[in-house]
C-alpha cells in the first residue's frame, strides 16, 4: 500500500472512524514488509497490537492452578496414611516392649502358633473379639518368623513415621508459603507503580 493510503487510514484511525477491515489492513501493513520511513513512528503501536493478539493462555497455567489442590489431597492422604500406620504400629510396639521378658521361653512356642492357627481361627476370632486382639495375634507371628530382622523395627518405624509426619507438615506449609510469597511479591511489584497512574 502507498504511503498516502496508509496515512489517510491512520488519520481516520486516530479519529475512531475506521472500520474493522481498515484497522486490520493497518496492522497487516505495519507487521509485514518494509515500512515507509515517514510512518516509522507509529509502527510500534500496530506491532504491539499484533503481538497482544497472539497472547495465549498457556497450558502450563492450567497445571499450575491444579497443582496446589493436588498437594492438598496428597497431604491429606499422607496424613491419613500416617495415622493409620501409627494406629497399626501401636499394639506392635507394646507387644515388643514385653517381648524381652517373654521372648526366651516364648520363642520355641511362637513358631508353632502361626502354623496351627492360620486363617480359619483368625476368621473365627475376628467377629467375636475386639479389634485390638486381632493385632497382637497377627503380630506375634512376625517376631517368631523374623525376629532378627525386625528387632529394630518398631521404634525405628515409629520414629520414621514421626519424621514423615513432620516432613509432610513442613512440605505443606512450604507450599502454602510459597504461593503466598509469590502473591505478595507480585503485589509489591505492582504497588511500586501505583503513583504513576492517573485516574480517569
Amino acid at each position, binding site marked *: 500500500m502507498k504511503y498516502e493510503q496508509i496515512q489517510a487510514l491512520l488519520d481516520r484511525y486516530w479519529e475512531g472512524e475506521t472500520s474493522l477491515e481498515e*484497522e486490520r489492513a493497518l496492522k497487516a501493513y505495519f507487521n509485514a514488509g518494509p515500512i515507509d520511513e515517514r510512518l516509522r*513512528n507509529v509502527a510500534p*503501536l500496530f506491532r504491539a497490537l499484533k503481538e497482544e493478539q497472539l497472547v495465549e493462555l498457556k497450558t502450563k497455567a492450567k497445571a499450575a492452578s491444579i497443582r496446589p489442590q493436588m498437594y492438598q489431597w496428597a497431604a491429606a492422604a499422607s496424613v491419613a496414611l500416617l495415622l493409620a500406620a501409627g494406629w497399626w504400629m501401636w499394639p506392635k510396639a507394646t507387644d515388643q516392649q514385653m517381648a524381652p521378658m517373654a521372648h526366651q521361653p516364648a520363642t520355641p512356642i511362637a513358631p508353632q502358633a502361626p502354623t496351627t492357627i492360620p486363617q480359619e481361627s483368625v476368621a473365627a476370632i475376628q467377629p467375636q473379639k475386639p479389634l485390638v486382639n486381632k493385632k497382637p495375634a497377627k503380630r506375634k507371628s512376625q517376631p517368631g518368623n523374623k525376629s532378627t530382622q525386625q528387632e529394630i523395627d518398631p521404634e525405628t518405624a515409629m520414629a520414621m513415621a514421626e519424621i514423615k509426619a513432620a516432613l509432610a507438615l513442613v512440605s505443606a506449609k512450604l507450599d502454602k508459603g510459597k504461593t503466598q510469597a509469590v502473591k505478595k511479591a507480585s503485589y509489591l511489584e*505492582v504497588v511500586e507503580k501505583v503513583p504513576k497512574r492517573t485516574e480517569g
Partner: protein
Amino acid sequence: MTRTIFQEQVLPIRNKLYRFALRITGSVHEAEDVVQEVLEKVWKTAPEQSVNVQNWEAWCMTLTRNRSLDKTRSQSLRRTAPLEGVAERSADGYNPAQATESADLVQKVKQLMQELPDKQRMVMHLRDIEELSYEEIAEALSISMEQVKVNLHRARKTIREQMTGLT
C-alpha cells in the same frame, strides 16, 4: 449449560477471555484465576438461565470484566504493572537490527496502553486487539455505543500523544 455449547462456544474463546482479564488485572496469575472462575461459572449455569443467553461470548466477556475488576479492587492491584509474559516475545518477521531497536518501543507502547484509565483500556483492547464491533463492545461492557466511541477515541488520542514523546 450443555456440553456442546460449552465446547463449541465457550472453550474456544478462553484465550480471548484470558487476554481481556490480563489487560484488566495486569497479572498473569490473576488472569488465569479469572478465566478458570468464569469457565466454571458458565459451566454451572442452570439450563433455564442459559436459555436466555443470546450471545455467549459477550456474556463471558462481561463475566470476565466483572471478575477481573473485583480482583483488582479486592487486592488493590493496579494494572499499571507491565504485562508479564509478553516482554520476552520477540518481534519477528522483519530484519533483526530493526527488530531489536523497535522491540523496546513496542514494549513501551504496551505499557502506555496499560496505563490508560479502565474504561478506555477495555474499549481499546476489545476493539484493537479482539477486533469486536462497537455493538459487541457495548454489550460486553454494558455501556452505550456512544460511550464506546468516546472512550476509544480518547484512548487512541492519548496513545498517539504519548507515543510522540517516545521517539
